[in-house]
């Protein structure tokens, strides 16, 4: 049924229709509305016998999820930013034990400086935690991919993060098609756990493993992710059959075939990009885009096949590996090794900086002229940075940089309005 609702409400409805048995979550912006919505639905008795566990922290949330999933319950949670950092030890444990927990990440920057807005620093900090990480481009996909996530998690016996841009998607009211319960039930059968904590038949989950077998257990984690590379497109195809929509999958090209330049990105920014790139194509530029929907496992082969003939690849991401450049760009370079394409790394949208068609156009124009420096910081004010660097050099006690820069930006903004 078509509804005009907030992204978080859409996710809450989708998760409820997946018939979770335990939800354990701790509120953090911008994910809070999702678990609040689910909490209300559970209280009204709309989510079957689901238990909503109020916990004292994110560490408690993920630890509870581990316990409930190990006991054979379909389990869900959500987090963002510092909340994810706080649960990180348990995040690794969940995947190490092969527990099919589904977690929404309302993508938000990690401080300091403290910042509630969107970028991908949080889920990127868990990119090596052996979870599956799926990115969504809009709120329809957010609904659809959550439904796929439970089935994928349980089929692969791996936990899945559904990453959606905080505020931009979680707080946007848009039109979405909320599926019928009957269709969701058809796609997603009941949870058949591969391992269950049972006092009658005790097992050790998370045994200590020494040097003699650790590498083999880790290889298995890698192998399971590679297996998921096969499952993800299969499930997206089955989903399309039942729901009639193209959601999920490994990656999605948008007019990328045969183009000299291809922009690679993830998440909601593809929407604005499509509009800019259509304009550029109309003016005769050979340029298209490709959205990566499964970040972990990384679809290296599918990416190689899509970009085999590209001359230039511009990787745009809302994440930064401080000290080297883009994180996604590194993965793309590794996947494209040996192919002719020159890969540019562009880092933008950090901490919620608006990514506009105007500033994207400027960057793409530089890109197709091979004028992007390595890495390129999108829409950044070098004046502000230069001023702070001078202060750091010239003063004995220049004070905290974040505060200095804030003061500068305030002055700059004020000067502009006069």
């Amino acid at each position, binding site marked *: 049924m078509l509804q005009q609702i907030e992204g978080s409400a859409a996710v809450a409805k989708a998760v409820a229709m997946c018939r979770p048995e335990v939800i354990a979550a701790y509120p953090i912006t911008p994910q809070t509305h999702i678990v609040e919505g689910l909490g209300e639905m559970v209280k009204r008795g709309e989510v079957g016998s689901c238990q909503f566990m109020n916990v004292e922290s994110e560490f408690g949330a993920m630890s509870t999820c581990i316990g409930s999933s190990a006991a054979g319950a379909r389990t869900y949670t959500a987090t963002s930013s510092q909340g994810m950092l706080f649960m990180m030890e348990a995040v690794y444990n969940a995947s190490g034990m092969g527990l099919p927990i589904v977690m929404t990440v309302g993508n938000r920057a990690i401080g300091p400086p403290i910042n509630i807005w969107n970028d991908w620093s949080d889920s990127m900090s868990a990119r090596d935690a052996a979870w599956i990480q799926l990115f969504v481009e809009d709120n329809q996909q957010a609904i659809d991919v959550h439904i796929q996530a439970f089935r994928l998690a349980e089929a692969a016996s791996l936990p899945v993060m559904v990453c959606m*841009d905080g505020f931009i998607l979680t707080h946007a009211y848009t039109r979405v098609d909320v599926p019928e319960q009957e269709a969701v039930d058809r796609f997603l059968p009941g949870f058949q756990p591969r391992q269950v904590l049972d006092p009658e038949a005790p097992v050790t989950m998370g045994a200590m493993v020494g040097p003699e077998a650790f590498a083999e257990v880790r290889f298995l984690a890698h192998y399971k992710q590679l297996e998921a590379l096969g499952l993800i497109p299969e499930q997206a195809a089955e989903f399309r059959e039942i729901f009639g929509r193209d959601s999920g999958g490994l990656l999605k090209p948008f007019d990328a075939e045969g183009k000299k330049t291809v922009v690679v990105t993830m998440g909601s920014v593809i*929407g604005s990009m499509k509009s800019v790139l259509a304009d550029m194509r109309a003016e005769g530029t050979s340029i298209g885009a490709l959205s990566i929907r499964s970040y972990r496992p990384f679809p290296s082969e599918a990416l190689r096949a899509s970009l085999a003939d590209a001359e230039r690849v511009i990787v745009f991401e809302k994440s930064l590996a401080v000290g080297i450049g883009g994180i996604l760009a590194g993965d793309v370079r590794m996947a494209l090794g040996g192919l002719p394409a020159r890969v540019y790394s562009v880092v933008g949208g950090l901490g919620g900086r608006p990514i506009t068609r105007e500033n994207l156009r400027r960057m793409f124009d530089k890109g197709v002229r091979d004028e992007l420096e390595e890495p390129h910081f999108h829409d950044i004010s070098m004046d502000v940075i230069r001023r702070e660097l001078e202060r750091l050099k010239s003063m004995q006690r220049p004070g905290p940089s974040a505060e200095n820069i804030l003061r500068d930006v305030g002055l700059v903004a004020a000067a502009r309005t006069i």
Partner: protein
Amino acid sequence: MAAFEEGKHSQAIPSFGSERMGAPVVAYVRIDDAPIELYEPVMSPDLLIIQDPTLFHAVDVFSGLARDGFVLINTSREVEDLHIEEAVQDLPEHHVATVAATELAMRHIGRPTPNTVLLGALTALTDVIHFSSVIKAINDKFSGDVAERNVAAAQAAHDQAHAA
């Protein structure tokens, strides 16, 4: 929600900042016949609703406004008394309106929440959404007494803006 009632696509994005009482806040809406894929902030609005005219002194609220755009201001004063001639003088006739939305909200709803009131006034200014759709949306979002009071407030604002 009113645009959705009319079968259109719409997108509402609040712009969050430090949650302080009295701090300036911005929210954006796009309405289109086609699906909306843009998520950038609206930088050149066709329609501007100013909920608090004291913002004229703090922020350039008219920045990027379309040449044939509409302006709706929540104030009990007349446009002429707001000292914004420079910003609105090039707009077509009947494209600028004021409505005492907070007062109407206090009278009908009993709380200073001018949102639905301004939506009622908006439908008198432009036909981008129809008044009946606003009423439907209010009744979808609220029920009982709260819905009735909001509808009454929107109706009063619609009539007042029409008369202006």
